C-alpha cells in the first residue's frame, strides 16, 4: 500500500464569489454553495462571513472548526459521516492549508469562547492564523437543539470537502509523506517505539466526540490508523471550556502524531495512536486507564504521550492513565493546562499523577486584555463577559478558543518565578 500523502495547497486569501474555485493560493467561496452544504430541515438560514488574520474581527460563540480536505473524486474524507468506514488507506488527501470553516452561534451547553483575529488573543488561538469561513445559523422553528447541532456539524464537514475539491487539480505547494506506525514485530534499528494516547471528551450531547460518526462514549480504548484520523475519522461535537477543546481541525492535524512523525527514524519510531473515551464515573476512568496501559504494552510501545480534552474531570483520566502506564514500566508524558489563579500563585493542578514528567500548556486563569474590534461574528454580545461583542474586554485565557490546546498544538506554557519577584498580572502572553 502506498504511503499516505498530504497534497498541500496554501491559502493566502479568501473571498466570496459566484462559484467556488481555487487559484494561486486564493480561495473563492461560492455563497450559494455554502447554503447548499448546510441545507437541512433543522436550519432556517445560514449566513457565511469571512475573517482573516490581522483583521480587527472577533468571532464569539465559536463551535467546531474544520480544515478543508478532500480525497478527490474517489471520496473518503470524514469516514462515518460522508464516506464509508475502514476503507484501505493510502493515496492522497488534498489540504487547503491556511483555511478553516467554523460555525458560530448559540447552542445549549456551549461554554462561550472567542477568537480574535488580531491583538493579544491572536497569539494564543490557532484559529487566528487561518483564513476562516465563519457560518452563522438560524435554527428552524420546532427543530430540536440536537438536530440543529447535527445539521451544523454535517454542514461544516460538507463545506470543508466541497472547498478542498476545488483544489484537486491545482499544482500543490508541498507534498508530505505521512509516516505510518511501525508494527510491534518490525525492527526498530535500536530506536525506542513511542506512541500516543488521545483521550476524547465523552459527556453526552454537546460534549461528545465522534469516531467514525459514533460517540466514543462506552467504547474501550482502541488503536486507530492515524491516516484515518488525518482524513477526519475523529470529529468534535464538544463545546466545553473553549481553551480546553480539541476542535476537528486539531484532530485532522494531530499535533502529537505530527511531532512523532517528524522524529520518526531519527531518534524514535512512531509506534501508533490509541483513542480513549473519558467516562464520567470513577470506575470507568480506572477501567479505561488500565486497559489503555495494557493496550500500549501489547502494541509494544516503549513510551507514550498522553493527552486529554476538558477541565478538572479530565485531569483525573490523565492522572490515572499516567499512573497505570508508569506502573507498567512505560514512561508516560501527559499534557496539562494549569489552573493556578489569575496571578499564577495557586496550585497549578486539581489532580495529577503520583509522579511524572508533565508538559504545561499554559494557565487557564491568566488574564488577557483585548482591545475593541471593528466587527463581530457569531452574535451581538459576548455574554460570558456581559459586553457588546466588539467591546474592549479583559478575559481569562480560558475563553480563547484552543488557547491551552490539550492536544499540544500551542506554544503557550508556564514557568515558575520565585516568590521574591513581583507576579505579573497580565500581558505576559
Amino acid at each position: 500500500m502506498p504511503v499516505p500523502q498530504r497534497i498541500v495547497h496554501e491559502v493566502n486569501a479568501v473571498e466570496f464569489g459566484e462559484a467556488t474555485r481555487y487559484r494561486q493560493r486564493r480561495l473563492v467561496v461560492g455563497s450559494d454553495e455554502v447554503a447548499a452544504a448546510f441545507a437541512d430541515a433543522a436550519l432556517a438560514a445560514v449566513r457565511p462571513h469571512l475573517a482573516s488574520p490581522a483583521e480587527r474581527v472577533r468571532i464569539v460563540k465559536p463551535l467546531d472548526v474544520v480544515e478543508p480536505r478532500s480525497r478527490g473524486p474517489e471520496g473518503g474524507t470524514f469516514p462515518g459521516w460522508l464516506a464509508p468506514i475502514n476503507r484501505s488507506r493510502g493515496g492522497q488527501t488534498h489540504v487547503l492549508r491556511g483555511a478553516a470553516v467554523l460555525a458560530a452561534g448559540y447552542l445549549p451547553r456551549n461554554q462561550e469562547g472567542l477568537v480574535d483575529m488580531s491583538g493579544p488573543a491572536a497569539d494564543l488561538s490557532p484559529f487566528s492564523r487561518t483564513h476562516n469561513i465563519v457560518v452563522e445559523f438560524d435554527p428552524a422553528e420546532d427543530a430540536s437543539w440536537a438536530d440543529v447541532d447535527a445539521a451544523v456539524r454535517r454542514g461544516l464537514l460538507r463545506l470543508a470537502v466541497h472547498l478542498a475539491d476545488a483544489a484537486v487539480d491545482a499544482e500543490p505547494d508541498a507534498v508530505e509523506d505521512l509516516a505510518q506506525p511501525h508494527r510491534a514485530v518490525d525492527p526498530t534499528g535500536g530506536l525506542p517505539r513511542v506512541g500516543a494516547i488521545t483521550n476524547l471528551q465523552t459527556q453526552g450531547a454537546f460534549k461528545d466526540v465522534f469516531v467514525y460518526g459514533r460517540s466514543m462514549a462506552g467504547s474501550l480504548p482502541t488503536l486507530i490508523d492515524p491516516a484515518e484520523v488525518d482524513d477526519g475519522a475523529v470529529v468534535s461535537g464538544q463545546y466545553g471550556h473553549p481553551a480546553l477543546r480539541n476542535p476537528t481541525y486539531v484532530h485532522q492535524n494531530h499535533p502529537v502524531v505530527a511531532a512523532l512523525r517528524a522524529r520518526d527514524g531519527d531518534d524514535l519510531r512512531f509506534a501508533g495512536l490509541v483513542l480513549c473515551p473519558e467516562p464520567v464515573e470513577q470506575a470507568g476512568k480506572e477501567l479505561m486507564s488500565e486497559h489503555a496501559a495494557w493496550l500500549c504494552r501489547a502494541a509494544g510501545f516503549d513510551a507514550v504521550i498522553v493527552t486529554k480534552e476538558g477541565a478538572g474531570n479530565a485531569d483525573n483520566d490523565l492522572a490515572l492513565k499516567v499512573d497505570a502506564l508508569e506502573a507498567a514500566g512505560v514512561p508516560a508524558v501527559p499534557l496539562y493546562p494549569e489552573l493556578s489563579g489569575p496571578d499564577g500563585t495557586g496550585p497549578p493542578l486539581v489532580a495529577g499523577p503520583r509522579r511524572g514528567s508533565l508538559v504545561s500548556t499554559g494557565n487557564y486563569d491568566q488574564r488577557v486584555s483585548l482591545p475593541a474590534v471593528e466587527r463581530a461574528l457569531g452574535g451581538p454580545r459576548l455574554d460570558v463577559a456581559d459586553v457588546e461583542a466588539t467591546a474592549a474586554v479583559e478575559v481569562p485565557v480560558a475563553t480563547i478558543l484552543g488557547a491551552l490546546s490539550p492536544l499540544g498544538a500551542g506554544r503557550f506554557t508556564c514557568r515558575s518565578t520565585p516568590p521574591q519577584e513581583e507576579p505579573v498580572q497580565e500581558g505576559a502572553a
Partner: protein
Amino acid sequence: MMRVVHYINQFYAGLGGEEAAGLSPRLLDGPAGPGRLLDQLLGDEHEVVATVVCGDNHAAGTAGVTEELLGMVREAGAELLLTGPAFGSGRYGMACARLAAAGTTAGLPSLAAMHPDNPGIGEAGTAPVIAAGASARKMRASLQRVAPALAKLAAGQALTEQDGRVGRSARLGRLVEHTAAQRAVELVLRRLAGEDADAVTEIPLGGFDSVEPAAPVEKVGAASVALLTEGALVPAGNPDRLESARATRWLRYSVDGLDTLADGDWESVDGGFATTAANADPNRLVPLDAARALQRDGAVGGLHDELLVTVGNGTSVVTARRFGVEWAARLRAAGVQAAILTAT
C-alpha cells in the same frame, strides 16, 4: 526606630475562644499576647505601639472588614504592619493575608506570618509571607524568624526564601518556540535516556491538599445542619448573575419556610454539566425535600435557613479555598454543626 502595629485574633489577644469569634475590630495600646515577645525580639530597633484585634468569624466573613482594620492600623500611626502568626488556622490566616495584602497595596510595609499550607496564603497578594509553624507550640521559633524579617522590611530590603519567605512561586505564562506536542517528545526521549521523571517535568508535582475529616457530630438529632452546593443552583432568572464557570463569588438564599425547591423557581446555571435533570427537580441537586423529612422525623435537630451557593466549574483552588473558609466562618457564627455540600 519604626512604629509597628500588630494584628492578632481574639484568641491570642486573650479575649476568648470560639465563642468570641464574632468579636468586632478593636484597637489596643501597645503589644498584646505574642506581641510582647515580638517587642522583646525587636529590641531597641522598633517598637510595637498598638495591637489590632478582630474575631475570626467577623474577620473572615464580613464585607469591608479589611478596609476597617487597615483604617485602625493607620490610626495607630503604623510605619510597619505584622499580621499573625496565624499558624495553620484558616480563618485567621485569611484575615492576616488580606490585611497584609491591603497594607502593601496602600504603600505600608506589611508582613504576614503563617504556616505554608495555611489556606489563607493565596490571599496575600504581593505582601511577603514568612513561614510559621503548624501550631502555637512553635510561637517562639516563628517569631524568631519574623522579627529579623520585619527589621529587613523596615530597612526597605526585599525578603527572600533565606528569610523564611514562603508562598508559591508565580506560574507565569509565556510563548515558547516549540509546541507542547514537540516538547512532549523531548521529555519522552529524556525519560527513555534514563532521566528521572521529576527532573524533566515542566510542572512540579506535589503540594496537593489532603483534608482531614472533621470528628463525627455527636448528637445529630440536636444539630443544626446546612445545605451547600457548588452546582450553581440559583433562583430562576439568576437575579444575582452567578457565573456559569470560574466563580469569583458565592451567594446565599433563604430556604426559610420552604419544604421543597419547586421546579421553575430554581435553576442551575452551571456550565459544566447537563442541567436538564437538576432543573426538572432542583431537590436532586440540593436535597431540601429529603432534609425537611429528616427534620420532621427528628433525625436532625434543625435546618439552617440559608442555602450557600457557588459554581465549582473551572473555579481555581485558591478561590475555592477562600470560599471554604468564608463558608465555615458564616456557618460557625450561625451555630451550624454540620453541612451537606453537593457537587456536580
